[in-house]
């Protein structure tokens, strides 16, 4: 995973460059009257220094044994699950909670190892309706109605 740490360091440096560029658009002020950019520039400096030091440290540890990364099949499951969870966020305003939560529930149950389809349908229905009852009915969370006009 050594390469992953270096990639994280590079990503952090890139994000930090955007952060610092944005911070420079705000008033800096003076040490006696620090403006909106004063503290973010210091924080940006900390991030840059830490990211650089992390990259150098990892690069120098060249001879140390690296830990193994995830198996391709495991990584595929992670990507599918993350994408399905993201689909809930995308679908929620259009179709409401009940419909948006069906794909994420079914796929999560399947990926986590529930193989029997009848059990899967029963459990998924219970979870989808249960969360709606808890949050939508008991706690009165106003879920978007969606194009179908449902909860």
């Amino acid at each position: 995973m050594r390469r992953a740490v270096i990639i994280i360091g590079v990503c952090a440096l890139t994000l930090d460059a955007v952060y610092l560029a944005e911070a420079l658009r705000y008033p800096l002020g003076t040490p006696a009257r620090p403006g909106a950019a004063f503290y973010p520039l210091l924080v940006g400096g900390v991030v840059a220094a830490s990211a650089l030091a992390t990259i150098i440290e990892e690069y120098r540890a060249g001879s140390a044994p690296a830990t193994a990364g995830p198996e391709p099949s495991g990584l595929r499951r992670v990507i599918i699950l993350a994408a399905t969870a993201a689909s809930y966020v995308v679908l929620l305003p259009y179709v409401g909670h009940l419909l948006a939560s069906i794909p994420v529930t079914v796929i999560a149950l399947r990926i986590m190892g529930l193989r029997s389809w009848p059990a899967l349908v029963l459990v998924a229905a219970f979870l989808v309706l249960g969360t709606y009852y808890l949050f939508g009915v008991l706690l009165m969370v106003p879920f978007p109605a969606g194009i179908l006009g449902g909860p």
Partner: protein
Amino acid sequence: MSPLEGLAYGFSVALSPENLGAALLGAVLGTLVGVLPGIGPVGAMALLLPLTLHMPPQTALIMLAAIYYGSMYGGSTTSILLNVPGEAASVITTIEGYQLARKGRAGAALAVAAVGSFVAGTLGVIGLMLFAPALSRFALSFGVPEFFSLALLGLLALSRVSGGRFWPGMLVLGLGLALATVGLDPISGQARFTFGVVELQQGIDLVPVVMGLYGIAEVLSVAEQGGGMPRLTGVRLRELFPTLDEWRRSFPAILRGAFLGFLIGLIPGPSTVLSTFVSYNIERRLSRRRAEFGRGAIEGVAGPESANNAATSGAMVPMLSLGIPFSPATAMLLAALLVQGVRPGPLLVREYPAVFWGVIASMYIGNLALLILNLPLVGIWASVLRLPQSVLLTVVLLLTLVGAYSINNSLLDLSVLLAAGVVGYIFRKVQFDPAPMVLALVLGPILENSFRQSLFMSQGSLLIFIQRPISALLIGASAAVLLAPLAWRAVKPTVPAGEQAHG
């Protein structure tokens, strides 16, 4: 209000049906969270925080605090029976606890862990009751430079202690501080880093970040393994009661663990975990039967299990009396109060006595309930592991998604949740501890406000932080936290390669 009057008032609050129910529910959920490997107390508190929005502040804090200290009880169960720690503060219990179970002394180990947790938990609450009001009175003399120095110490200590490696810890901390600057500038009111998104002007909410870093990341990690988690097989609890000799060996360890755990809880860092390692090492050094360590020494269960419980009480002292959390778990307790409009700090005891004394009194009740829940019912808790993990983790995923949305009814929070989940998963893979990011999100605004206000006060002179005695002391401690390990590395004797290989 004297401590005894405060406690009497606290019991009148804690014994109301809704608060009693909240303490018992929190104790049950905490034990459950402790027993189940994976989602720890911080993730569970984040998961349940949306439910507390509909409760009075004292009820919310009573329930979340019970989850926090309740998880310390439950954590020992799987450590002893399965050699699998339910949460991080029970890792050390696996060493002696599982060996005792293999020798047929599982019941004794579980009983000692539960009684030790109860004794230390109760002593810890007494410490909290005496320390917190005194610290609140002392903190009334704090100005903004002191709060800056305190927040700085908390952040540096956590990033130094938690991850193991300094620079990755600082990187995670820096990213958290950067996230905390998103939103309106607290002094000038200028929108910063919002990139035109109006919702971002309120800043990034702590709860979806914590839910993502701990909840979603855990679900993704398990998904990577295909849902495989430990299964309970053939556990029999013989010898449910410890022998007289085991009690005799355990009680001094319990008392030492309670004292040590409470003190470690007061200082910044992952105190519940740290206290167990320190306690275990002390017990091993003090024991007359050192050879038994690693093969099932009861002191090695009694000390650490007591220490982590007392540490939860110690960790609540700075959160309640200064309004500054030193760990992600206490940051969640702070967040629960902030969303209710209650600002913990030196004035909490005076302005919100029901919250302060109510939660303290509820901890006495909660600890007693946990002893009853964990000792005779241990078999039931262990059997929780028979629940299909697929269902359990899907529940966590769904509750996380719906819970994150319900806090502000915001789709932005859901996006933050998912981003934090992916980041949390990657952090796990590369062994970066997310705790500094959580604490930076909470302490970042305090750090910035107090830093800039101090500069206004001093006309731009940084000397203000070392000209005031308390602030100077805290800055000195921060410098020590930063530099001591480097100094130690420079002066420590080098061991010849041959000796290292054989030693």
